[in-house]
């Protein structure tokens, strides 16, 4: 690991500079308030911001969002953009769970209508959407040819199979489809993805019914169908075992590539290849294929959410349950940004960071063109989550990116220790939140106090101008792995 002197300098109440030193090619820039910065003491994530700044072809600073925490290679909450000719792509800048992301549906139901039948809704969601490590489903059988179609066409494949509507596709980042190359995905990765489509997985992934408990921007909230009291369903999941395997496969290849192209690495997990090299092309093809798997995965889960709503509240309620948005927070994409006074095509890595394009951006569909891209920020299962929209400030300063969640503040080991003598599901139920989980261990590791207060994280991005608050959602029922 690089050993840099981390004399972090405060720029203003929400920005901190990690000055360029040693082999760093640029500064680091961290968005946080003083208290969030204090939380980072003793953590290696600031070092990781500096490590990313060592990579060739980086444009602008190595950026970290206020939910930054210690990852592997890149910090979680990291954003870095690389010149398309001189830069690199790094699987460590995307992470194992390629296109881990969040999807939000809004139902036509109000919290008053749902509360009396909340137990039935929680049980039905838990029954219809398999959760937990290695969860699979027997009702969605993919032939090898089907799987290649998923890897190539993403959410569009799912909609063509009857899992959703055309309207859904218009409410997904990149239309739910990136230029995936199934041939770049290994046999083992495909084997792991064969029966996991439509499953939520484990760890911090979840399906959560909640309701709009506070509105900050009534006009935008109304456009998104998020009036006060509206019941919503959040889905947080990614590319499951297939994506993890793609990352693992290409880390080996990128280690060899970094040696081949003479790229010095401050951390092996930052291994990378020049954009335009065969190694980079193959990785991007495989990463996009895994991203498509994740888009299709969330599309199928949304279908089963609608089926749960239909079982408990009727078909009409299910048919009127619209997708608000679906956004990735672990991805690398080519985008055009203004840098050094001119538009440049850059490969923007977001690892634990959300795209937050402003009103007027040409990549946004008609529906969002005048309000900006919806940004979905889940919190912990006991407090709240937020909906924001992208801003011109984010586009100018962070390559159109903002935070992705609360960020952990307690280790998993510590969280289990704290939770062991307690009954967490009972505690949450006493607060009106039902939990259904495949394992007690997951619930214990995910206790609310293991996370930072997502409201503080969101307040920082709002105050710094890299996201605009629209609404707060409060959980009612949570399905965990």
């Amino acid at each position, binding site marked *: *690991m690089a050993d840099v002197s981390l004399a972090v300098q405060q720029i203003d109440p929400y920005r901190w500079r990690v000055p360029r030193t040693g082999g760093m090619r640029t500064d680091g820039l961290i968005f946080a308030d003083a208290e969030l910065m204090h939380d980072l003491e*003793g*953590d290696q994530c600031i070092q990781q911001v500096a490590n990313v700044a060592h990579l060739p072809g980086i444009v602008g600073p190595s950026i970290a969002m206020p939910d930054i*925490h*210690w*990852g*592997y*290679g890149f910090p*979680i909450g990291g954003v870095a953009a690389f010149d398309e000719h001189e830069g690199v792509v790094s699987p460590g800048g995307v*992470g*194992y*769970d390629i296109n881990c992301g969040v999807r939000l549906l809004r139902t036509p139901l109000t919290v008053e209508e749902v509360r009396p039948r909340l137990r039935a809704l929680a049980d039905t969601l838990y029954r219809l959407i398999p959760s*937990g*490590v*290695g969860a699979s489903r027997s009702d969605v059988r993919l032939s090898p040819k089907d799987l290649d179609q998923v890897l190539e066409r993403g959410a569009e494949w799912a909609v063509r199979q009857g899992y959703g509507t055309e309207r859904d596709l218009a409410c997904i980042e990149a239309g739910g489809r990136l230029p995936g190359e199934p041939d770049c995905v290994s046999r*083992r990765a495909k*084997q*792991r993805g064969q029966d996991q489509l439509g499953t939520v*997985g*484990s*760890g911090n992934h979840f399906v959560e019914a909640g309701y709009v408990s506070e509105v900050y921007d009534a006009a935008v909230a109304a456009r998104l169908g998020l009036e006060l009291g509206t019941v919503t369903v959040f889905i947080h999941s990614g590319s499951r*075992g297939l994506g*993890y395997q793609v*990352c*693992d496969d290409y*880390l080996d290849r990128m*280690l060899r590539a970094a040696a081949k192209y003479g790229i010095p690495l401050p*951390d*092996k*997990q930052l291994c990378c290849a020049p954009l335009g090299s065969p190694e980079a092309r193959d990785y991007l093809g495989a990463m996009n294929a895994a991203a498509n798997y994740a888009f299709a995965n969330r599309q199928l889960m949304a279908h089963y959410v609608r089926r749960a709503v239909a079982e408990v509240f009727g078909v009409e309620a299910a048919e009127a349950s619209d997708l608000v948005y679906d956004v990735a927070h672990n991805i690398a994409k080519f985008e055009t940004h203004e840098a050094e006074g001119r538009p440049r095509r850059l490969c923007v890595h977001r690892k634990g960071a959300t795209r937050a394009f402003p009103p007027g951006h040409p990549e946004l569909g008609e529906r969002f063109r005048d309000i900006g891209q919806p940004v979905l920020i889940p919190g912990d299962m006991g407090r709240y989550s937020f909906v924001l929209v992208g801003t011109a400030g984010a586009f100018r300063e962070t390559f159109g990116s903002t935070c992705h969640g609360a960020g*952990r*503040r*307690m*280790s*998993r*080991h*510590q969280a289990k220790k704290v939770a062991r003598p307690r009954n967490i599901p009972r505690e949450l139920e006493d607060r009106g939140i039902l939990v259904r989980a*495949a*394992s*007690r*261990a*997951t619930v214990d*590791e995910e206790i609310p106090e293991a996370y930072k207060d997502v409201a503080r994280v969101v307040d920082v991005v709002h105050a710094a101008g890299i996201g605009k608050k629209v609404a707060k959602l409060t959980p009612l029922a949570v399905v965990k*792995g």
Partner: protein
Amino acid sequence: MTYYYLPHTADLRVAFEAPTFAALLEDVVRVIREQTAGDGPVEARAGRGVALEAPDLAELFFGFAREALAAFQVDRFVPAGFELDALALPPAPPSLAGRLWGEPFDPARHEVQPEIKAVTRHGLRLEEGPGGWRAELLFDV
């Protein structure tokens, strides 16, 4: 037990101390057993061959951890122990061969654990000292 968990906010960071390299590998299997099936007993009912080569010993150690985890990720096989048949240490090109012993995950007897996505090379350490071997691994959860 010669492994312990180090502080880490999001993932699992484990330190190992063992008198021999072979004992280090057995500890890796213990961690993966604990992180995939909980504290209950796992029986050595079936074996799976493992044969690895690597450019250096740290990579061999990392590769072994990845193989042991893959047994669970791909085939739901919970490893309970490792029988080392052959080990080549530097200056010879590092390699190992042996058998992972364990059994298929049984939800009736094994406790579902949060998913480990991968073994990472971040902070990977392996060193031999006067008292034996020390190593560190970070698992992405």
